């Protein structure tokens, strides 16, 4: 008899857990991805790149987040009408094609292959692939020095491919699912350099825990034109371009750059002209 009670109780607990978790996810979907009429707009950002797009207990912060907020405001949405979604690098094109998000601001560099699948507004920032090294490390002065070094990057990223194929083919490359895994190794000298876009690196370098411990190499190994990804053929592209132009001209762009990259001492490129992709 008692056993039956236990069975019933565990079944009830299971059902409760299921409904509780199911509710948690359902309210998000209700917004859908309708057109301008609906009360909210879904935006894809990164959740784990401090300075660019970072999930924090207080909400979301970073340069991409500020840009997305500005664009949303220009499109007629207030801040609390924005629905943030995580868009991991590998998912970005599909999310746009399927209409899971209206636009993506997630350190999304414009390139030919991606332009075949989605449209880009912008660019709104010109970044470069660079390396983050320990501040007391003087042995890396040019990209060629990386050949004898241990590098770290994120699994399957273009930065990792670049290193392997062009920049330093002889370097040892460790790939992790996340950049913060690389930072631990960098700090402990298991890794000599972390490579990705300088804008992302600056975000990490300016964190309180790392102030003064890391520096940027300043190599400008590639040009990364960050754009706002939208669905192919979407009329949002023109609207976002207008919004971006306004953001630069009224000074909000510079303010966002200062607020997010300032502490890192990161020398950003001037605001790029819309449609001017530096290759």
């Amino acid at each position, binding site marked *: 008899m008692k056993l039956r009670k236990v069975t019933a109780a565990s079944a009830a607990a299971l059902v409760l857990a299921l409904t509780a978790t199911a509710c948690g996810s359902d309210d998000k979907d209700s917004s859908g991805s309708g057109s301008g009429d609906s009360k909210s707009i879904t935006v894809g950002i990164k959740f784990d790149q401090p300075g660019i797009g*970072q999930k924090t207990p207080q909400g979301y912060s970073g340069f991409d987040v500020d840009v997305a907020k500005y664009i949303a405001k220009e499109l007629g949405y207030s801040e609390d009408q924005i629905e943030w979604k995580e868009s991991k690098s590998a998912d970005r094109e599909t999310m746009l094609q399927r209409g899971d998000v209206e636009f993506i601001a997630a350190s999304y560099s414009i390139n030919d292959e991606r332009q075949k699948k989605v449209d880009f507004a912008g660019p709104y920032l010109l970044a470069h692939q660079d390396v983050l090294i320990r501040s007391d490390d003087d042995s890396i002065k040019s990209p060629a020095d990386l050949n004898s070094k241990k590098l770290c990057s994120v699994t399957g990223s273009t930065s990792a491919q670049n290193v392997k194929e062009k920049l330093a083919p002889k370097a040892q490359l460790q790939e992790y699912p996340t950049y913060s895994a690389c930072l631990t190794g960098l700090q402990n000298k298991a890794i000599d350099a972390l490579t990705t876009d300088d804008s992302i690196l600056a975000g990490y370098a300016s964190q309180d825990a790392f102030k003064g411990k890391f520096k940027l190499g300043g190599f400008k190994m590639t040009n990364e034109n960050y754009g706002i990804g939208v669905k192919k053929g979407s009329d949002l592209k023109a609207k976002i371009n207008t919004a971006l132009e306004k953001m630069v001209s009224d000074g909000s762009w510079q303010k966002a750059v200062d607020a997010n990259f300032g502490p890192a001492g990161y020398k950003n490129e001037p605001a790029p002209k819309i449609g001017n992709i530096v290759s």
Partner: protein
Amino acid sequence: MSSVLYDAQGPRAKRRNVVFTVGFLIALAAVLWWVFSALEDKQQLEWAKWEPFFHTEAWSTYIWPGLQNTLKAAALAMVIALPLGAVLGISRLSDHVWVRVPAGIIVEFFRAIPVLVLMIFGLALYSEYTNISTEDRPLYAVVTGLVLYNAAVLAEIVRAGILALPKGQSEAAMAIGLRKGQVMRTILLPQAVTAMLPAIVSQTVVIVKDTALGGGVLTFSDLIAAVSPMSSYYGANIIASFTVVGLIFIAINFALTTFASWLERRLRRGKKSTGAVLDPNDASISGTMGTGAGGGVGGI
């Protein structure tokens, strides 16, 4: 049990034991000291790296949403796999060859393939042939992988549970004129379910552990994946984050394991049942080992 392996200890044996204990203690302490001093040396023990876990915001922002997904995937997988496994397991006991053999092939096939391979396949399948949203796809893929594998393992648990019942049960049922379906439904299954409960609870541990593959290798936003935004926000406290996540897993699974052995002890004591109880730790039936135990491909 173990006392049969050595004699009651005299003064010499006691002294030797003390020597062994002290030696082992020193070795353990040396390892622990090395780990801690190395962690200290690499500034991993800084209070700033651990402090976030003593505030609710780290839990509510990162850990709880991840844990919710982990539990959701595990619960869904169990709820779907259980009936599926029951059907497969009973089919394997069928008198009809065309039911028994295909069920057998399905079970052996899915038990032979790593869960991760099934998950990778599921993820690609859903992105190519369905329009499940990008956000939900990893959940579907993880649940699919877990269901396919665990239905096969549960099928074996069900089959073993039914086979473990005394033969007299089905013979007596037949003798009073019940048909095959009735024997299974009214006599065998109710008893077998009781016998299988501990093994089923143990299998849940395997499922909970295997959800971690979704966050570790695929893009599922589970407890493992929560480490990434968490450690980037709190200044790369990745060691601390993983330690906390590991402890959470241990707590959940330890509770489940304890529950399973409590159930088993209770059932063994019960006088009314036939006394047949499946050992939840028997790797040959339940895949207690995680990520695809339960071989016995040729054995059972």
